């Protein structure tokens, strides 16, 4: 660890900060005051930049060094220290009470906090659901889908339009939203089956935008940019609910939906289908050579992922009571993608954490809202460098066998 303070390293940092100071000189130091026609020299900015970059370059290399050391340790066979979350989840004495506490907190949330807070929480839960859905496509099957928001929009418009034209209620449309999502998933999945990686990403991104543009321009069908208003909230046995009660009600519906999602995604993950997805992500050729139908496997991933987005869309429409195409821009897809990447691809707990962090933090750190996108970007870059596996890495299921418990020779 002391290597970091060697003369060599100091020299490196020195040149870095010199170069940085030089680069930022024109914008950070020189300012032309056009009113008084003088040039201001803000030397103290230069000092901040130089010392700042000197320090940061040290920090950067220190972190890289630590990461390398960690990797070497892992390679030389030494057991990696389990991450905190994993240690908590492996120990029933800790996680049981923790789970109970979380459950109580979650259930009593609307009574402890204002409806404003409950609303934010509901939004976060919608993103949890979206994240878990996209996690099937990206995290498990490894298909980089940047147009996921299209299915979310499909669900929302399904509810809004069916309600507008035929007066169908929330509970009738919720399963329909799932079906519409699944069908859209298959329809969009077919043409992109042959594509991989970057190409798939570009084409799905295009699809997402096409759906939004159609909604924006096809006035007769979707009422264009002005959107659809007065979408009813979920009914509760025909009773009229006050605004607060309705907010709380949607919150509880969302809790239920998230639990159902977790339940099913968890089962899928450790099933024949889930394993095929992961195999597809790991190596497409080997996957086919092992008898897996690539086309079918990709399509199930696409359509199952889209199913959750469709349902989330229905709930979103019911929650906001108003939708228009502006709610379904590429930015939404990007946020959901960030949730999956930040949380940890393929890990359910990770995605939940990722959604809560990415949706709640900006809400509560309003002071930083101007820098929101910058922080988003910086966080992702740092994650990619230092923790590509996300906050919580995916852990495979362990099977127990009689007589196989003793390991090693």
């Amino acid at each position: 660890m002391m290597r970091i303070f060697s003369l060599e390293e100091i020299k490196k940092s020195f040149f870095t900060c010199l170069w940085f100071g030089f680069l930022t000189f024109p914008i950070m130091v020189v300012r032309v005051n056009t009113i008084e026609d003088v040039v201001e020299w803000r030397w103290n900015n230069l000092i901040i930049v130089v010392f700042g970059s000197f320090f940061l370059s040290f920090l950067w290399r220190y972190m890289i060094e630590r990461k390398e050391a960690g990797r070497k340790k892992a390679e030389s066979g030494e057991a990696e220290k389990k991450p905190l979350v994993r240690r908590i989840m492996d120990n029933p004495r800790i996680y049981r009470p923790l789970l109970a506490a979380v459950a109580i907190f979650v259930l009593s949330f609307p009574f402890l906090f204002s409806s404003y807070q409950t609303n934010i929480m509901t939004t976060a839960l919608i993103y949890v659901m979206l994240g878990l859905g996209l996690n099937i496509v990206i995290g498990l099957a490894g298909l980089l889908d940047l147009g996921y928001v299209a299915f979310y929009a499909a669900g929302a418009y399904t509810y809004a339009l069916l309600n507008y034209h035929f007066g169908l209620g929330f509970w009738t449309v919720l399963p329909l939203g799932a079906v519409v999502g699944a069908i859209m998933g298959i329809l969009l999945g077919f043409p992109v089956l042959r594509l991989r990686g970057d190409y798939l990403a570009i084409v799905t991104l295009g699809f997402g935008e096409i759906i939004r543009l159609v909604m924006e321009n096809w006035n007769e069908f979707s009422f264009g940019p002005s959107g659809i208003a007065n979408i009813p909230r979920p009914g509760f046995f025909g009773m009229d609910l006050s605004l607060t009660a309705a907010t709380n009600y949607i919150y509880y519906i969302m809790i239920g939906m998230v639990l159902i999602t977790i339940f099913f995604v968890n089962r899928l993950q450790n099933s024949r289908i889930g394993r095929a997805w992961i195999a597809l992500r790991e190596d497409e050729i080997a996957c086919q050579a092992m008898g897996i139908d690539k086309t079918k496997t990709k399509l199930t991933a696409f359509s199952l992922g889209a199913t959750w987005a469709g349902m989330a869309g229905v709930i979103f429409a019911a929650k906001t009571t108003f939708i228009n195409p502006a709610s379904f821009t590429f930015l939404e897809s990007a946020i959901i993608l960030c949730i999956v990447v930040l949380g940890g691809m393929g890990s359910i707990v990770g995605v939940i954490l990722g959604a809560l962090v990415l949706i709640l933090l900006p809400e509560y750190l309003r002071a930083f809202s101007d820098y929101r996108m910058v922080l988003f970007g910086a966080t992702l870059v740092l994650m990619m460098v230092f923790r590509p596996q996300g906050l919580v890495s995916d852990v495979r299921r362990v099977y127990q066998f009689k007589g196989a418990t003793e390991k090693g020779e």
Partner: protein
Amino acid sequence: MEPILEVNKLSMDFGGLRALDAVDLDVKNGEIAALIGPNGAGKTTFFNCITGIYNPSGGDIYIAPPGKKNGNRPERINGIKPNHVTKKGMARTFQNIRLFGSMTVLENVMIGRHCRTRTGVAGAMLRLKSTVREEQDLVDFSYGILERMGLARFVNDLAKNLPYGAQRRLEIARALATEPFLLLLDEPAAGMNPQETRDLVDLIVRIRDDEKVSVMLIEHDMKLVMTLSDRIFVMDYGKKIAQGKPSEIKNDPVVIKAYLGEDVDA
């Protein structure tokens, strides 16, 4: 002896390059056949063509799975998808190991059983009785294979963390899990030390005798090829230049020239 795989005049072109040129080859039930030849001869391309990864530009591939009730009429499998080839009973390994690195050893073998199991999306989500039973059978079966391949102690390790030799064996285990009648091994001994190679020879013999699976292997290790194979096919520049018993191949001037000729030119 009936051939279980029969290849007639198989050709494969990559643009102007003729990687396979009218190759005839057959594998009989219960035999260990070897395909040898200098680097770039077209051996891997041959495997890729008969397993459906490439669609050959010419020729015919017939398979006749042994032990079928209604006689084994050969079936032409040109151009069908790799997963269908596997389902019909030919499984392979790869020259550069292609395991599912971040899955466990057991899961890798379980993947091999994908085409022999049937749980669908609904079954997985609802966890029906049949699903639970199938899953349990699958785990037991896969563990059984790992035990026979001597990999049982790695069962819950991630495939990428396995030592090299074990990774090669895991690829064989995974292919065996598909219950093939013919196992295609692409350079199984590459990168192994002498001890591992000796274990591999035992393993391949066991696969033929105990698992009743015929084997066709590509290999550069001549000692291994000569001790193991019943018949050897030799390729050079996409053409089959010789075939026969090890003793015949060993003294075949054409083969010697193909191998040594390169050194003389170089």
